[in-house]
């Protein structure tokens, strides 16, 4: 992809913008003595509306913050807009938030194309585009886009973690991959190939893409089985991952099955697919699964459960989306609290870029959020785990995706 | 009187076509409506069946039917053979005939189909064929056969001769005459071919731009040279 010209130009534009910081007034746009205005753009309707639970969890968490007295002595005023996962609509809604509603920052926008569409605009306007809900690696480019930051581990890093595991344990395996035909799927494959290094071409015997619009992945699974692969890497969103797990079991295919972290929720993927079909699945995670009995007495998840009961009773407690929404909004709360004495857009970005060992209630033990001025990837650690038919069993160490790089 | 019409008016949108027609049809008789293109003949038939908006009084067998819907007028025993024949082109000949008897009890239908086939032997040969594949004459026969399946008390015929070869027309009108004499079905016949119509009909009405210009027995009209010259052109 040749976007180097535009990238450089954006860099220059950003350079100018730094000078403009000095002129920022005492009271930042979107902040009053009693309120902070924050915008969220997510697909509440349309094909990606399954994710809308994240937005509603964010909303509920912010209500909880407000009920507990707000942050920095201010109530958070949240404006939630729907973009239907359509980039032009995202642009429209972002401009509405920034120019008409005059929000302080836009938080947790969902999707790669949608966030890409507004990334340049947000950076030109110098409005924080904080903790976007996508693992695409482009949303941590601190040099060119200092106002944009991701949150979850990026897909490339996760792909590398799996590659390392395969090289360690099954170095002579034949790999078959099911992937969603977009940046999400391709980032994983890129990570995987980078991790496998020279052996990638020998080991990967088949790559089967599917489109979000496909009704099923049945025929892909049949093709993968017939390719003779004995390691199956399942890079699919929950619905398709569940179909794949079920279909593989139905046709009696029992490879070493690795399912990506997007789809390792016991409640919303493994249960529909059939728990008995999911035995021995391998995955990696950074958050706790509320369906997993080992967290029954976990303090963090208890807080999450209490929150769900009180603020989002309609929400799905078996879904990883609500856990995600909780974790990411808790991180936002943390960042806002740390910027109380400099409640400007610049101040928030500074505080977002200086998180030290922050652990959310929903993160696995040992998974810590760390950022710096040159590290715009908040969560980079994950831990491998294996499904025993009932729950995930963590194994090995917490792996840092950025370390797994090499 | 089987049908009695008073002050019948009808329009297409803002465009008035019929300006108050009065006419009657006697039980067992054939009445014809004559007139030039655009005089309102087809409109009259459509108005009688409630296929367009109309006003005035229409009494069938003493009962007013001007507010009755098309589907229910059919149930009273009025069969309409529309302009362009209105066959169900995608259905078979036999199915077309069955449809004609839709509103009647199921048991009698099979015999009636046979009766229609007796009247139109060509239709029997083609009973399984799609109606759209029939020739124009055969389609007209099918349309009339379908109307007969209703065991109608009154049949409205809209230009049965249209677009047919002279020989076929002759055959067709022979059959209509047969229907009139043997089955005692009353008819209201709209025709361009006045000579043919007057031969079949007992009574005729002459329509001119939505009003009745003249009425009388067929014989009267046939013998009136002035009318023949100025209206009928033969």
């Amino acid at each position: 992809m040749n976007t180097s010209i535009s990238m450089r130009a954006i860099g220059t534009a950003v350079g100018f913008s730094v000078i403009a910081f000095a002129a920022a007034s005492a009271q930042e746009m979107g902040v009053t003595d009693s309120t902070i205005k924050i915008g969220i753009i997510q697909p509440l309707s349309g094909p990606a509306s399954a994710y809308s639970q994240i937005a509603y969890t964010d909303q509920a968490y912010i209500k909880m913050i407000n009920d507990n007295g707000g942050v920095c002595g201010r109530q958070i005023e949240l404006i939630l807009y729907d973009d239907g996962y359509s980039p032009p609509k995202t642009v429209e809604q972002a401009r509405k938030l920034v120019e008409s509603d005059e929000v302080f920052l836009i938080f947790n926008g969902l999707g790669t194309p949608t966030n890409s569409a507004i990334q340049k605009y947000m950076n030109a306007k110098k409005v924080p585009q904080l903790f976007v809900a996508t693992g695409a690696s482009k949303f941590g480019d601190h040099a060119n886009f200092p106002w944009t930051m991701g949150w979850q581990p990026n897909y490339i890093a996760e792909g590398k973690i799996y590659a390392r595991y395969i090289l360690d344990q099954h170095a002579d395996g034949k790999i078959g991959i099911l992937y969603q035909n977009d940046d999400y799927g391709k980032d994983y494959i890129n990570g995987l190939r980078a991790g496998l290094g020279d052996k990638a071409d020998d080991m990967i015997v088949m790559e089967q893409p599917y489109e979000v619009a496909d009704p099923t992945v049945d025929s892909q699974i049949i093709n993968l089985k017939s390719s003779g692969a004995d390691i199956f890497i399942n890079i699919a969103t929950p619905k398709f991952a569940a179909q794949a797990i079920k279909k593989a079991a139905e046709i009696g295919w029992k490879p070493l099955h690795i399912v990506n972290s997007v789809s390792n929720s016991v409640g919303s993927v493994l249960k529909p697919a059939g728990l008995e079909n999911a035995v021995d699945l391998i995955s990696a995670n950074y958050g706790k699964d509320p369906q997993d009995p080992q967290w029954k007495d976990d303090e963090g998840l208890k807080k999450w459960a209490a929150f769900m009961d009180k603020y989002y009773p309609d929400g799905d407690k078996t879904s990883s989306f609500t856990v995600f929404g909780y974790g990411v909004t808790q991180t936002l709360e943390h960042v806002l609290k740390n910027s109380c004495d400099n409640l400007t857009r610049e101040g928030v970005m500074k505080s977002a870029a200086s998180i030290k060992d922050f652990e959310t209630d929903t993160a696995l033990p040992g998974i810590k959020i760390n950022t710096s001025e040159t590290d715009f990837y908040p969560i980079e650690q994950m831990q491998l785990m294996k499904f025993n038919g009932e729950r995930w069993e963590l194994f090995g160490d917490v792996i840092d995706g950025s370390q797994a790089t090499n | 009187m089987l049908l009695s019409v008073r002050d019948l008016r009808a329009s297409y949108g803002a465009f008035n076509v019929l300006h108050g027609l009065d006419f009657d049809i006697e039980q067992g008789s054939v009445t014809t409506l004559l007139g030039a293109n655009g005089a309102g003949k087809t409109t009259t038939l459509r108005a009688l069946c409630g296929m367009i908006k109309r006003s005035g009084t229409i009494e069938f067998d003493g009962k007013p039917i001007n507010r009755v819907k098309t589907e229910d007028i059919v149930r009273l025993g009025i069969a309409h053979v529309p302009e362009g024949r209105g066959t169900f082109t995608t259905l078979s000949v036999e199915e077309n005939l069955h449809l004609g008897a839709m509103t009647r009890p199921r048991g009698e239908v099979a015999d009636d189909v046979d009766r229609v086939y007796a009247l139109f032997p060509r239709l029997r040969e083609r009973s399984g064929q799609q109606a759209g594949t029939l020739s124009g004459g055969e389609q007209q026969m099918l349309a009339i056969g379908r109307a007969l399946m209703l065991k109608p008390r009154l049949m409205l015929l809209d230009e049965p001769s249209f677009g047919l070869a002279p020989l076929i027309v002759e055959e067709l009108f022979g059959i209509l005459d047969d229907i009139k004499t043997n089955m005692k079905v009353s008819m209201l016949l709209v025709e361009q071919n006045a000579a043919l119509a007057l031969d079949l009909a007992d009574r005729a009405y002459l329509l001119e731009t939505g009003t009745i210009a003249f009425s009388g027995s067929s014989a009267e009209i046939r013998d009136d040279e002035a009318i023949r010259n100025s209206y009928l052109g033969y």
Partner: protein
Amino acid sequence: MTASQDNVSIVTGKAGTRPVAATPGAIASLAVLALLVACPFFLKNFHIFQLNLMLVYAIAIMGLNLLTGFNGQFSLGHGAFYAIGAYTTAILMDQYDIAYFWTLPVAGIVCFVAGFLFGLPALRLENIYLALATFALAVATPQMLKLSVLEHWTGGVQGIVIFKPDAPFGLPLNQDQWLYFFTLAVGLLLYWAARNLIRSRAGRALMAIRDNPLAARSMGINVSLYKALAFGVSAFFTGIAGALAAIVIQFVAPDSFTLVLSVALLVGLVVGGVGWLPGAVVGGAFIVFVPNIAEEISKGLSGAMYGVILILLIYLMPTGAGGLIRTVTDRLRRR
């Protein structure tokens, strides 16, 4: 564009089929035009941006209308031409540093060719089959744009980010205002061209084909050629709209051009009025604003609200805004 030209189109559905009293229509269209020109000086940039999008969609709908309203061919796939136009502009600007205004004619011509070529096989397809073919086109578009072999140009799923132009000649306008006027000017130019096309011999031939293809053929009209040309011209308009959209939004990506877009254009066409060119503005407004209104009413049920509004609009005006205006003016005149 003169006032008298406008007035005819406001009142009659099919341009030039009926002579009409001049004043009310002329005043109405002048008022609308004046409003469109004045808007940017009163509104926030964000609203200018929305109005700009409205105009862009209006141009696309105008293109669709040429095909559906005036030639009787049906398309559920105009999003594809919109996408081709947008990508043409984006690639030209991103990879070859070509000025935005030059990319418009190129996008138009590329789309004309694409439309013409698509129109050729589509000729043999009637009604529902054509609907399916164009539907398939709409579904295939995002997948084609994602193709890895094309990624060098299209940027894959990530899309292409482009720059927003400044006002030229030191005009005292900000970027949004300038782009708005630019779009408005292009739109008016295309509108003028469309109206002249409809009134020309070729336009009459198109309508003759719509009303009765057999008769048109017997009149010596080359039906196949005209139908394919209609597809081409229609795609030309829609492609320019796509190009403008790319410039206005500064971003193209496969997910911008899904079936939803094609469907939205069709809905806009019907709401504005099939066969009534100015209806495109109404349709454009519908596409931009109604989803927002629906969202205001209810977040969770915004889709249902959108559907309900749409059904109510169709009840209110079964033949779109064009039909409504026609009925109203007819009634006024008869008084």
